[in-house]
């Protein structure tokens, strides 16, 4: 099955699995070629594809996408832009002493766009959230959705509201610890700190 660019964007906006699968099958090879040709690995390409798709989804939800080219080319430029920013950030971290204090290269991200750093953080947080026990995921989702405590206790079959709160703190703490113990997060937070306090 083939989709027009318009249908694909609409399908992505509605998170239709068929459209996402189509995008994965047809657009991933392009992303892979960007990454592999520019000192990246297959895993980097998979991460970049996810980030690119989230960025495209966010773009289509928040801003109006005016396509001057076909969607594939548009997606290619998003991913290439992200990959160049990622490479630059990693190089800056590798050669901290020499170039960290130099001004970072500015790319033409629009105001409402996610930054490359935010997309990488988001992926890390999402992955660790999805690795939590199912009960933890549910409790945290309920709290994030601002469901009243009483209802959460009832939904989750907890004995009372206090216990529900305790579960929330425990799960959140578990999530934070998992993120902090992930070697990838060190790079993200070091970069954040250096940018805040050069």
């Amino acid at each position, binding site marked *: 099955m083939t989709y027009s660019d318009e249908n694909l964007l609409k399908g992505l906006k509605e998170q239709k699995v068929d459209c996402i699968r189509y995008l*994965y099958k047809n657009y991933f090879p392009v992303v892979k070629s960007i990454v592999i040709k520019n000192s990246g690995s297959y895993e980097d390409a998979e991460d970049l594809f996810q980030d690119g798709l989230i960025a495209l*989804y966010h773009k289509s939800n928040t801003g109006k996408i005016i396509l001057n080219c076909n969607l594939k080319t548009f997606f290619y430029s998003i991913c290439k832009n992200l990959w160049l920013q990622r490479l630059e950030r990693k190089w800056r971290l590798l050669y901290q002493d020499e170039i960290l204090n130099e001004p970072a290269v500015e790319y033409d991200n629009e105001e409402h766009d996610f930054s490359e750093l935010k997309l990488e953080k988001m992926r890390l947080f999402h992955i660790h*959230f*999805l690795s939590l026990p199912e009960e933890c995921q549910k409790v945290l989702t309920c709290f994030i959705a601002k469901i009243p405590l009483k209802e959460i206790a009832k939904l989750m079959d907890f004995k009372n509201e206090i216990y529900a709160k*305790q579960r929330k703190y425990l799960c*959140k*703490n578990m999530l934070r610890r998992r993120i902090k113990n992930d070697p990838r997060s060190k790079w993200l937070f070091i970069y954040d*700190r250096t940018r805040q306090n050069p």
Partner: protein
Amino acid sequence: MIREVNGYLFMTEQDKIPEWIDRFNNNELSGEELAQFIELLNKDPELRSEVTLDKELNEILSANDLLELRKKIIRIREREQRKGGGRRILLIAASILILISLPILFFIFKNRDVDHQQAKLNDTARSLRNQMDSAKKVNPVNKEGLQLLSDKVLHGENKTISTHPAETLLASNYSPFPAYENLVGAHFRSGDFRLILPASKSRFHLSDPLVFKWESGNQHQLKLTIMDNKGNPVYEADHLAGNSLKLPKGYIKKGLFYFKFLIENEMVVFGKFIVE
């Protein structure tokens, strides 16, 4: 102290930090608790980073649609990779099969080739044997052999059997054929047949016609055969009539030649001549 058992965390009452972090970011801390927490924050940079992380987590996880999209992408990727993995396993299996079968096929074809070459060699050997046998028959080395040759040529009339190949070396065309040398000048029961020309061991020029002359009372079944110095017949004539035979100039190439006359299959004269 927080402990993790089977993926679940257990918190003692003394450990209020995780709760305070969460409540601080949700603006739920107040009074003495808030003052205490701010004091801790000022002292502990690690706690500060923890609070920042929690704040970012709240922000990112609040966008539930993005989390849902991530779940779908991951699920699709895993499914496609499983499919790709299946295909990869098939490819690997096919490659292994080819790798195993290649040496076997090579062995089979090599053996077949060896058999084929052996058969060819056998054929060549057989054909060489046949050629040698026929050479023995055509190039007689004694009187009986010559008689056999005469028998063979009886069936044809005035026909050229072969000519010298152009590439034959001239020097080799003049070397004597030992088996024939013994017959030259030997006495045969010639009856009333007398050869007049060519004289014994004559020399002809290539531009001269080659002339044979004889006298004979018996004209029946007179045959002439001319052989080169390898014993190959180059001219044969059955039932010769008259008393002479003239071969046009250039008919016989340069070299040493032997000739024989037979009457009723019996050798009467054996001689030789040279064409220069």
